[in-house]
């Protein structure tokens, strides 16, 4: 068979009377990375959700700093809870956008029509969302430590570890609900309503570990919370990937 008139590419072989052959599709992880990379390029070009999330995070940190009397309540008492409320709501902006970008001109059909497993679409979207949430955290964690005058050098690295663990769980759940709500009416409202109850165990454990870290308690005290957080991550990631396979075909 000659090279294709349209693309110049040698077409895949066709055997008379047998199923039509096609090119070898990318492996699961390669497809997921392809989708994540595309999402990040789109987001960095449009900057719609990223700028909104960063602005929300930094503004919230600054506003809360002036909202309480530091002589009555110490920063380390309020900062853990505040940080995780801020991460949760700023992250939601990106989670909503991930599948929203596929809806504009039904580009989702290109993904669903590709010869890749449905799970690769979910994983790619989740990886893109994870990069988004980590980027927001990379800006807002140092900002919070500076504004609330906390021990930057002692806290920053362990807190980054907690943030990564929690981000995985938030993204696993948020990506699934983002997919489910993206074509619904009032999806911006529906996503938080559905996802926030599932965020509670993740945010609660992350906030507990953060509180102990900021209070200077021994690391062993946070270990139990971190194990629980890791378990939530595993359960949510596996369950949500399975659930996406079901909803993608409907």
């Amino acid at each position, binding site marked *: 068979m000659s090279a294709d008139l*349209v*693309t110049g590419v040698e077409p895949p072989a066709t055997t008379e009377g047998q199923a039509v052959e096609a*090119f070898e599709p990318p492996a699961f992880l390669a497809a997921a990375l392809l989708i994540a990379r595309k999402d990040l390029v789109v987001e960095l070009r449009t900057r719609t959700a990223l700028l909104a999330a960063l602005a929300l995070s930094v503004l919230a940190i600054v506003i809360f700093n002036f909202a309480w009397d530091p002589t009555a309540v110490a920063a380390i008492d309020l900062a853990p809870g505040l940080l995780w409320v801020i991460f949760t709501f700023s992250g939601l902006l990106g989670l909503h956008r991930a599948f929203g*970008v596929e809806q504009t001109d039904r*580009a989702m059909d290109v993904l669903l029509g*590709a010869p890749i497993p449905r799970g690769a679409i979910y994983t790619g979207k989740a990886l893109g969302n994870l990069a988004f949430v980590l980027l927001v955290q990379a800006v807002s964690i140092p900002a919070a430590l500076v504004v609330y005058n906390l021990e930057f050098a002692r806290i920053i690295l362990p807190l980054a570890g907690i943030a990564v663990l929690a981000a995985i769980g938030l993204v696993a759940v948020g990506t699934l609900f983002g997919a489910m709500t993206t074509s619904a009416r009032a999806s911006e409202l529906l996503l938080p309503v559905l996802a926030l109850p599932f965020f509670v165990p993740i945010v609660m454990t992350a906030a507990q570990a953060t509180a102990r870290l900021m209070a200077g308690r021994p690391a062993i005290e946070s270990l139990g919370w971190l194990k629980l957080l890791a378990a939530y991550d595993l359960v949510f990631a596996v369950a949500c990937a399975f659930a996406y396979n079901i909803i993608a075909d409907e």
Partner: protein
Amino acid sequence: MPLVEAVALTRAFGVRRAVDKVDLAIESGECLALFGPNGAGKTTLLRLFAGLLRPTSGEARVGGVTLPGGARARATVGLISHQTMLYPALTALENLLFAARLHGVPDARDAALAALERVSMADRAETLVRDLSRGMQQRVTVARALVHRPRVLLLDEPFTGLDDAGSTTLAATLTELAEEGAALLLVTHDVREGLALATQVAVMRRGAIVLREPRLASGEPDGFVQRYRALVAS
């Protein structure tokens, strides 16, 4: 073996059957032009063959593989829909590269550039899609659907937004693809355009195929239009 085949294919949304026990077969090198009024179920039928919808009952097969489960079957399908299915924030070339890599096309860049060249858009390869006119976006859409060299092309109003030159180029490309052995399922409201490309003609009404015949039996476009109107009005 037909490249595209439906056996008692049915898709219901609630109690409404958008596609109702449709049987059809399109062989390699054939183009089936499917006509029908709005809401007849044409787009739903295309989405079933693209593997984007799960049948309620019956079977949709592409290249001998039953959909929507077969990733292999999806690999052989190219879809042009009402919408462009492009990312406005990516360039024309980036959109094609993304589609080509999802399908595992070797030398994706060369294939993408060649596809853009084919629709006379090579000089706009680095332009963001959002900066292109509707007609140019449609050309890129056509290139995107062809970049992985599909053996089955599902076309839903592919001439939308194209100017005369674009329409002529697309018609010539589709004819070439059919001559190479691709199977084409073309949904259009433009009866003349559809008849010009078709080797088979079908009319769909309320989810069912109410007429299917070889193109030669359809006669002149004017006569077919009269019959078509009578069919969809009855």
